[in-house]
């Protein structure tokens, strides 16, 4: 599904503050693989995700998505395949717009935004049905600005928004970092459920090693812009949680 070849990204090239954020990464991610990426701060995890999403462009190397070379495509064009959930709940939703408006935009992620009114009774019903799956009671608040909700509720809705339109790849960049333990657990369970139900290929960055241990079917560890550990599904099942902690020592 995603093939990354010899990817390099350097910030502040030639200055004293030069950082080789991604330093020659090659990675093949198969369809329906749920890849967990761990690593200390500054190891290049987020940069790698931004490169795949198209928010950043690589200095060298190529990214092939579903058979297309997307290396030169900006983020808003890669959204045809990719949906994202961000670390900051405010990034994934538009605060002043209603839940309904946010879902409307998400439901036409891969399409052009035309001059017709897309919100009708049928669409409202569809959104209410989808939101009721979360069991948060938000289906009765679809006309409220999404900014009036809590961070956990917004992250849950962002997750749900990603499957409103055709989605191949789901990028989760520390989606629970800003949440309390209960909301975090709910978000991770919802994500896992959606990934399985919609056969998504997913990438998750997390600092929570228990999540890294519990979820996903492949785990890699990054350090100084390189992949230093790569454990596939078979080996991951045998991996102990304490071994994960040892990677960081």
């Amino acid at each position, binding site marked *: 599904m995603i093939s990354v070849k010899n990817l390099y990204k350097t910030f502040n090239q030639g200055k004293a503050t030069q950082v080789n954020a991604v330093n020659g990464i090659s990675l093949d991610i198969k369809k329906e693989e749920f890849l967990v990426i761990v690593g200390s701060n500054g190891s290049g995890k987020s940069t790698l995700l931004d490169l795949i999403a198209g928010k950043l462009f690589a200095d060298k190397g190529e990214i092939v998505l579903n058979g297309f070379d997307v290396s030169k495509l900006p*983020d*808003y064009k890669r959204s045809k395949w990719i949906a*994202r959930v961000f670390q900051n709940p405010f*990034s*994934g939703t*538009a605060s*002043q717009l209603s839940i309904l*408006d946010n879902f*409307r935009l998400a439901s036409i992620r891969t*399409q052009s935004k035309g001059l017709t009114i897309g919100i009708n009774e049928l669409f409202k019903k569809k959104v209410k049905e989808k939101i009721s799956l979360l069991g948060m009671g938000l289906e009765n608040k679809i006309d409220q600005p999404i900014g009036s909700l809590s961070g956990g509720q917004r992250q849950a809705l962002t997750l749900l928004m990603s499957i409103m339109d055709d989605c191949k790849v789901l990028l989760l960049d520390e989606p629970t970092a800003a949440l309390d333990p209960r909301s975090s657990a709910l978000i991770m369970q919802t994500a896992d459920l959606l990934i399985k139900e919609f056969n998504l290929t997913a990438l998750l960055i997390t600092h929570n090693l228990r999540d890294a241990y519990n979820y996903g079917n492949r785990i890699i560890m990054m350090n100084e812009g390189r992949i230093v550990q790569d454990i596939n599904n078979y080996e991951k099942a045998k991996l102990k949680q304490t071994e994960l902690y040892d990677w960081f020592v």
Partner: protein
Amino acid sequence: MDFYLFAVLQGLCFSGIALGIYISMKIFNIPDITTDGSYTLGAAVTAILLMHHISAFIALPLVLIAGAISGALTGLIHTKLKINALLAGILVMYSLYSINLTIMGRSNLPLINVPSLFSILNISSNTNYNSFYILIVFITITTTIIGYLLKTDFGIAMRATGDSETMIRSLGVNTDRMKIIGLALANALTAVSGYLMSQLQGFTDISMGIGIVIVGLGSVIIAETFINLFNITSVWLSLGLVLLGAVIFQLVLAITLDLGVDANLLKLVTAAFVLIIIIIPKLKFNFLPKI
């Protein structure tokens, strides 16, 4: 009484600027002051066309295009050359002064005995009432179009662009393109204000746009005060309040003049009034329950 009616008429003419500033400032979160130039541009294009006996109906699309081009230029400078929006607006506004002067040929163009939008229909024998009815119809149509636009998928994407750029890009929207379109739309509406005002007052003057952006800002801030006070989320109500804001703003200025304030001090009074309406919502009144 006619004095106040004329203030209302002016307010209605300024509703284009108010809607334009609402789009650039509230929807896109961009401080755009191309306004001063695009307002005069609209008035200049109108004057030249009407003087050449071209119908006001044919002049309107040309005014819209002229305004849109000036807004798109600011948008292009801001997004493609990565220049601060305020500076981009100043540059375009500044250069528009020369362009307007070139279009007009001299600094003042009177429009006496020239058929205009306000002489097309004769609903009332009183010219002011006649202008009032025509303006109401004109603005209702304009606002309906803008309101509809904001409700479409494209409009929702526009509103999201000013709200969370990260989000809307990840949902497949080219935000640079969206901002250029937004600024073009805002300045097309501003140019329409120039179109209306030049015909209402019967002349176009090169300096008529100086500081006019404050009229739009004041109107939008009045509207915003109501929007926040009553927690309004409806697009239609918000647009209606922006129009109301434009009229209230002119009425307050008329009252000030009526009270005998020196006309030379009008801009100072205007600025003070805008300052007051900005700080009023920030004051905490003790008799209101704390939320």
